[in-house]
C-alpha cells in the first residue's frame, strides 16, 4: 500500500463520514418535516358540535355555572368560527348573603351605595373566531401520545342578565330583606337593559381522543358593562323599585366599569 493508496483511502473515508453526517442530518430534518406536516388529526373543512360546562374561577359576590352548546366550522387547521349559546345558572355567593345581612343590621350607614359586579348572566350567545395555530403531541406515558391544539378564542354577542341588590331594600325588617331591588327581564329601566353586549375571550387546549372526538379545557372571560345606583338616602327609601330609588336621591354610578366573569370551561366536541 503506497502513498497514493493511502491518499485515496483517506479521501474516501472523509467523503464517507461527511456523507454519513449529511444523510443523518437530512434524515432528522425529514423526520421533523413529516412529523409536522402529517397531522394525525386534521380538522380543516370539518364542522363540529360541542357542549361546555363553565364554573367561576373566582366567585366573589356572584357565582355562575354556564352550560353552553357550540357549533363551529374549521375553515383551516389553524382557524375556526364558532357560535356558542346557552344558559348560566347563577346566584349570590355566601359572602354576598353575609354582606347583605350585616348591612341591614348596621343602621349607622345613612347613604346607600350599591355594590359593583352584581349582574348575573343568564342566557348568552356569542359568535367568535378560534385561532388555533399550535398543534402538538405529548406523552402522558411512554406509550400514550396525546395530540392537542392550543387556541385563542375571541368573540362577542349578547347576554340576558339579572341583578339583585345586596343593600337596596325598601321594606326590610331586621337583617333580612325579602324585597331587594331586583332587575330582570327586558325592561330594566334607567339602570340599563338587562340585555347587554358581551365580549368573550378564551385560551384553551383541545385534546383529540379520536378522529371525531375532542376534549376542551379553557379559561374563558366574559366581559360586560356594569351599572348600579349610589347616593340613596336610606331614611327616605320606601319601596325597592327604580322609581323609589330615584326619589330617594339614587343616581347611577359614573364609575361602574366593566365586570369580568372568568370561568374554567370543560368541553367536548364531536368533529364531523
Amino acid at each position: 500500500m503506497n502513498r497514493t493508496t493511502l491518499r485515496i483511502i483517506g479521501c474516501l473515508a472523509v467523503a464517507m463520514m461527511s456523507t454519513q453526517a449529511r444523510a443523518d442530518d437530512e434524515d432528522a430534518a425529514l423526520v421533523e418535516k413529516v412529523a409536522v406536516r402529517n397531522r394525525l388529526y386534521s380538522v380543516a373543512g370539518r364542522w363540529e358540535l360541542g357542549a361546555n360546562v363553565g364554573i367561576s374561577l373566582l366567585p366573589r359576590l356572584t357565582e355562575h355555572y354556564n352550560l353552553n352548546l357550540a357549533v363551529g366550522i374549521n375553515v383551516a387547521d389553524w382557524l375556526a368560527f364558532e357560535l356558542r349559546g346557552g344558559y348560566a345558572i347563577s346566584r349570590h355567593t355566601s359572602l354576598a348573603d353575609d354582606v347583605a345581612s350585616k348591612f341591614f343590621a348596621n343602621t349607622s350607614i345613612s347613604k346607600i351605595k350599591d355594590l359593583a359586579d352584581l349582574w348575573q348572566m343568564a342566557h348568552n350567545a356569542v359568535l367568535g373566531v378560534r385561532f388555533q395555530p399550535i398543534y402538538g403531541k405529548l406523552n402522558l406515558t411512554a406509550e400514550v401520545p396525546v395530540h392537542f391544539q392550543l387556541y385563542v378564542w375571541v368573540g362577542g354577542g349578547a347576554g340576558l342578565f339579572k341583578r339583585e341588590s345586596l343593600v337596596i331594600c325598601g321594606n326590610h325588617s331586621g337583617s333580612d330583606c325579602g324585597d331587594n331591588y331586583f332587575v330582570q327581564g327586558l325592561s330594566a329601566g334607567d339602570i340599563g337593559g338587562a340585555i347587554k353586549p358581551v365580549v368573550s375571550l378564551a385560551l384553551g387546549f383541545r385534546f383529540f381522543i379520536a378522529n371525531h372526538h375532542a376534549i376542551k379545557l379553557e379559561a374563558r372571560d366574559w366581559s360586560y358593562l356594569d351599572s348600579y345606583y349610589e347616593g340613596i338616602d336610606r331614611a327616605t327609601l320606601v319601596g325597592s323599585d327604580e322609581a323609589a330609588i330615584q326619589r330617594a336621591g339614587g343616581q347611577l354610578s359614573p364609575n361602574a366599569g366593566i365586570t369580568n366573569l372568568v370561568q374554567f370551561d370543560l368541553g367536548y366536541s364531536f368533529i364531523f
Partner: protein
Amino acid sequence: MRFVMLLAALFWATTTVAAPVFTDAPTKVAQAASSNSNDDDEDEPVKSPAPTGTTTTAPAKTPAKTEDKKPAAAATPAAATEAKPADGEDQMRLVSGAPLFNPNVAVHIVEKKDHPDVGRLEAVLYAVTAQINGKFTQHFGTQGGLVWHLNENFGLQVTGGGNWYNEESSLNSELAEKVAATAQAATALLLTWGVMGGVEVTPIYGKFALFESTLAHFSIVVSGGAGVGGSRLMLKAANATQDATYGDMGLRFLTGIGLGFRLQVSDHFALRFEVRDTVYTARADRVNGCNFDDLAALQKQADQSQPLRAVADAGKLSGSCNWEKFDGVDTAGVKRSSDLTRAKNLVKDLSSDVINNVSFFLGASFLF
C-alpha cells in the same frame, strides 16, 4: 487493478451508508410503521410492507403529493447516480425505519428529547408573579429559583422572592367603604416574601408545531415544596393625606404545589408558565409581635400621652413585642400609636384561616 477494486469497494460502501434505503434504523423514530404497533400512528393506513432488503415495485394506494416527491437524500452521491424512484418506490423508502415519504404516515416523535436536562442546573427568573384568586388580597411579585435536574424527569428546586405589591383587594376596600365590613384579619393576611424548597417533576414531554413549520419542545412541570415567608396586615387604609399602615404578622410556614409549562427555546434557554398554589396558615393573635395584653398596655399609655418606652422599661410587655413600631410619628406626621386601636381589635377578635394564594408565574430560565 487492486486500486480500482479497492476504490470500487469503498465507493460501494459509501453509497450504501449514504442511501439507507432499507436499513434497520436506530431508535431515532421510536415507533416506526410497524404493522402491530400499539401507537396512535396505527390509525393511519400505512400500506408499506415491512423492510425486506429487496426493492419492491408495489405502489402505495395514496398518491404522494408533489412536494413529497423530492426525497431529502437526493443530493447524496448514491441517489444522484440512481434514477429517481417512482412514486410507489418513493413512498416505500424507509428513513430511520419509517416510510416517511408516504403522506399517510404520521410519526410518533415525542420520545426523543433534543435538549436533555439530566445533570444540569437551571436558573429561573420569574419576572412577574401575579395572584389570580385575590378575593380579599392582591399580590404581585418577582421570584428567582434554581432547579438541579437529577434526571430527566426529576429535580430539586429552590424558589424565593418577594411580593413588591401586596395590598388588600378592591373588593375589600369596596366592602369597607360601602357596607362598613371587611374580611377577617386572618383572611386578609398579606404575604411579603417567601422561600421554598422542594422537588420538580416533568412527567409529560411533548412537541408542538406553530402553523406547519416551527417546532417547539415543552415539558409539563409539576412542583411541590415547603418553606417559610413573611406576612403583614393592613392596619389603616391609605387616604389623601396618609399612606396605608401595616403591622408585621411574623413568619409563616408555607407549602406549595405548582403546575405549568416549560417551553424549550434552545439548548440553554427556556420559558416557563406556571400556576402555583402557596398555602399558609394565618392566625391573627399578635401584631408586631405584641399580644392583646401588650397592645392594651401600650394603648393605655398612649391615651395618657405617656411615652411607650416606659411600659417596655417596666417589663410589662412580652419579649416578642416590638413596641417601637407604634412609637413616634410617620412621614405624614401622624402618631403611629393611632394604629394601636385597630391592632388591639384585630387581636381581640381572634381569627384564623388557611389561605390559598394561587399565582401565575411567568419566567425565563437558563440551563447551564
